[in-house]
């Protein structure tokens, strides 16, 4: 049992941490966020140059090793900076699914381009009715001799506007909630019949609802086997869930520390806020929640690395525990910052917004508690 970083991990951590500290102040983040793409492509190019985009992928796929602990390090540090570059949507979600399913030279080449920072992906899996049930997919891909014809509606697709290629989860057979009969298909967003309605999200990212009407796609665009995308999708979404948990850890550390610093400076009734015990105990609670959530994420990382990357019980435990901590720490940080906490000007509220979003994507806190409970049966 060993909790210390390897030399490579230490270097990776330093590298991401240095970027956030030196080139990603909250003001710089806001400038990046307001660019047309929703992020700064110079930053993205730098991520590629520093090798961060290769971290989650196997050496066979052209990546660095794909250990959960490494991904945890990257996501935790990015979380500290509230980084809006689409590491999660592009690399962890869409990229990872492609690498799980990758079977043809075409998609391998695209994945390598993604790692080089030159290609953006977006994974379209959720639908308005599906909530957190990954198998509830009504988007149809009718199978013909040489092509698929897609019809359906995908909701809140992250990074869709910037995507060079969409990865669409569609039903190629069976009934709407069956785990069997789902396929992953690459779709060019420029194809006729693809209607992308973009919007910013509350937590600083970009997303879209996408409508497919009679969109024709070549058979060669299928990733993996027909009707068999579910296991890879579940594994990928689980891994991405672990990724946002690590991101949340970074944010919660910033929030509790910033709150402590603020209450030491802010004077009321002639003394610092930090001298009031009613507030002190709440900050102690924030600290305890952070440490417990961090432990849960470490547990998930270690389990993922000792089980070939699939540890649904521990990932659900982590998401449930992180969700609980994120709610308390986010709300308390705002409360203890008083009026400043609810302004757009201060970073505190933006951490709060992202922490709130994390509680409700990829399965809510309650969803994962229930999933854990049923996996224990």
């Amino acid at each position, binding site marked *: 049992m060993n909790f210390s970083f390897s030399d490579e991990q230490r270097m990776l951590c330093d590298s991401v941490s240095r970027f956030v500290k030196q080139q990603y102040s909250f003001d710089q983040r806001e400038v990046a966020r307001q660019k047309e793409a929703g992020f700064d492509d110079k930053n993205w190019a730098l991520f590629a140059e520093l090798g961060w985009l290769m971290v989650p992928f196997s050496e066979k796929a052209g990546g660095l090793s794909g250990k959960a602990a490494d991904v945890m390090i990257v996501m935790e540090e990015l979380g500290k900076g509230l980084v809006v570059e689409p590491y999660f949507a592009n690399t962890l979600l869409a990229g990872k699914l492609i690498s799980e399913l990758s079977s043809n030279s075409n998609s391998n080449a695209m994945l390598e381009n993604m790692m080089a920072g030159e290609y953006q992906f977006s994974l379209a899996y959720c639908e308005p009715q599906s909530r957190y049930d990954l198998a509830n997919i009504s988007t149809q891909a009718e199978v013909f001799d040489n092509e698929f014809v897609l019809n359906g509606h995908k909701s809140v697709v992250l990074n869709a506007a910037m995507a060079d290629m969409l990865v669409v989860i569609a039903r190629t057979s069976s009934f709407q909630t069956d785990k069997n009969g789902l396929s992953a298909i690459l779709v060019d967003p420029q194809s006729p019949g693809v209607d992308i309605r973009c919007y910013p999200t509350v937590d600083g990212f970009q997303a879209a609802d996408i409508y497919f009407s009679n969109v024709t796609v070549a058979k060669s665009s299928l990733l993996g086997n027909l009707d068999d995308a579910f296991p890879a999708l579940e594994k990928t979404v689980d891994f991405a869930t672990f990724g946002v948990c690590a991101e949340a850890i970074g944010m919660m550390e910033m929030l509790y520390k910033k709150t402590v610093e603020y209450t030491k400076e802010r004077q009321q009734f002639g003394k610092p806020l930090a001298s009031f015990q009613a507030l002190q105990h709440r900050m102690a*609670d924030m600290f305890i929640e952070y440490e417990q959530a961090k432990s849960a994420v470490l547990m998930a990382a270690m389990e993922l690395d000792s089980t070939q990357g699939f540890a649904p019980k521990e990932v659900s435990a982590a998401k449930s525990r992180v969700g609980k901590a994120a709610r308390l720490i986010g709300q308390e940080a705002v409360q203890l910052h008083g009026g400043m906490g609810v302004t757009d000007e201060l970073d505190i509220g933006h951490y709060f917004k992202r922490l709130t979003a994390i509680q409700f994507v990829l399965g809510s806190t309650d969803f994962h508690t229930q999933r854990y409970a049923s996996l224990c049966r």
Partner: protein
Amino acid sequence: MNNQFTDQELAFRDEVRNFLKVSLPKTTSERVLNGLRLTKEQRVQWQKVLYDKGWIAPNWPVEFGGTGWSATQKYLFEHECAAAGAPEVIAFGLKMVGPVIYTYGTEQQKKRFLPDILKSDVWWCQGFSEAAAGSDLASLQTTATLDGDNYIVSGTKTWTTYAQHADWIFCLARSPDRSLKNQQAINFLLIKMDTLGIKVSPIMMLDGQREINEVHFDNVVVPAENLIGEPNKGWSYAKMLLTHERTNIAKVAISKTRLKNLRKMASEPPKGGVALIDDHAFALKLAELEIELRSLEYTEMRTLAAVSSGGAPGPESSILKIKGTEVAQFIDELYVEAAGYYCLPFVNDQFHSDTNAEFPREHHIGQGSETDRAPWYFNNRKASIYGGSNEVQKVIICKSVLGL
């Protein structure tokens, strides 16, 4: 970074497991696993088995009788013991005053006291709290006045666990010099319980048991050679002891075993009824509790890892105390819930023929040990109060970790 055990560590685990299988009396482990009380004799018997094996004091330095185990070995030992239903070692000698004596005691004190602690031949109790000195321990009023070669001790200690069984008490008592600040006037004294002027009176707890006592000192004569360290420096020795006590209070391994048993119990439907685990709300509470406990286990391992790479069990041990007791008390509550109507009968410890002659086995009420769950829940509300209340632990976190 990994959570794997090495082959040597796995071999060690098997060695511990086999030892427990062979050496732990079944009558003892059954009581422990059912959450029932043990007699002093049962405890001493087990501690002597551990002593004979050389495993009684894993946390002590090797030169004083420790095992020299790594943090991982200690973790494995503790978890195997809890899983097998081995009694917890009584902390007062081995985990509290022992470390104080080998750290701050004289050579003579070490020679005199440590062997008996290791052999469990001498039973210790802790004379810290007083009626008016609880969380504010340093305001204690029991006095120790130097008179020639002796201290004269007067005052009353309270909440003294197992004082009725104890041969010795380690005691905090202040010097009469009122010009000294509280923390700078405290002496750490070792006092024999059969000394003239000591009187022990029982305090009954919510479970109807005598576990704690008041200990009265009326001009008790204590040889000055029984002072630990220097006069008036006792507070710093006590603080060191309390850090050890807090880490010990987390009881992660025991909670894991208890939760596992609770889950097993809840999964077995009563004849003609429905298993409790099929109650969605109960299953969720159980899941949440298990997630908290598994997280706490990692928090504990992180703390141990920091300690073994040179750090001290610092203020983080406060997290272990707070969360460890919260989890344990939540488990207590769910056991009561699982008992249903059988939480009501107040037939304290009906399995224990020594203390309760009214209930021979054939007259048992309930199907298992359900009737002991509510009394234990009431009793164990103490856990968030002793060892520095959980609120005091938060003050420690604020001061020492957050710098508030």
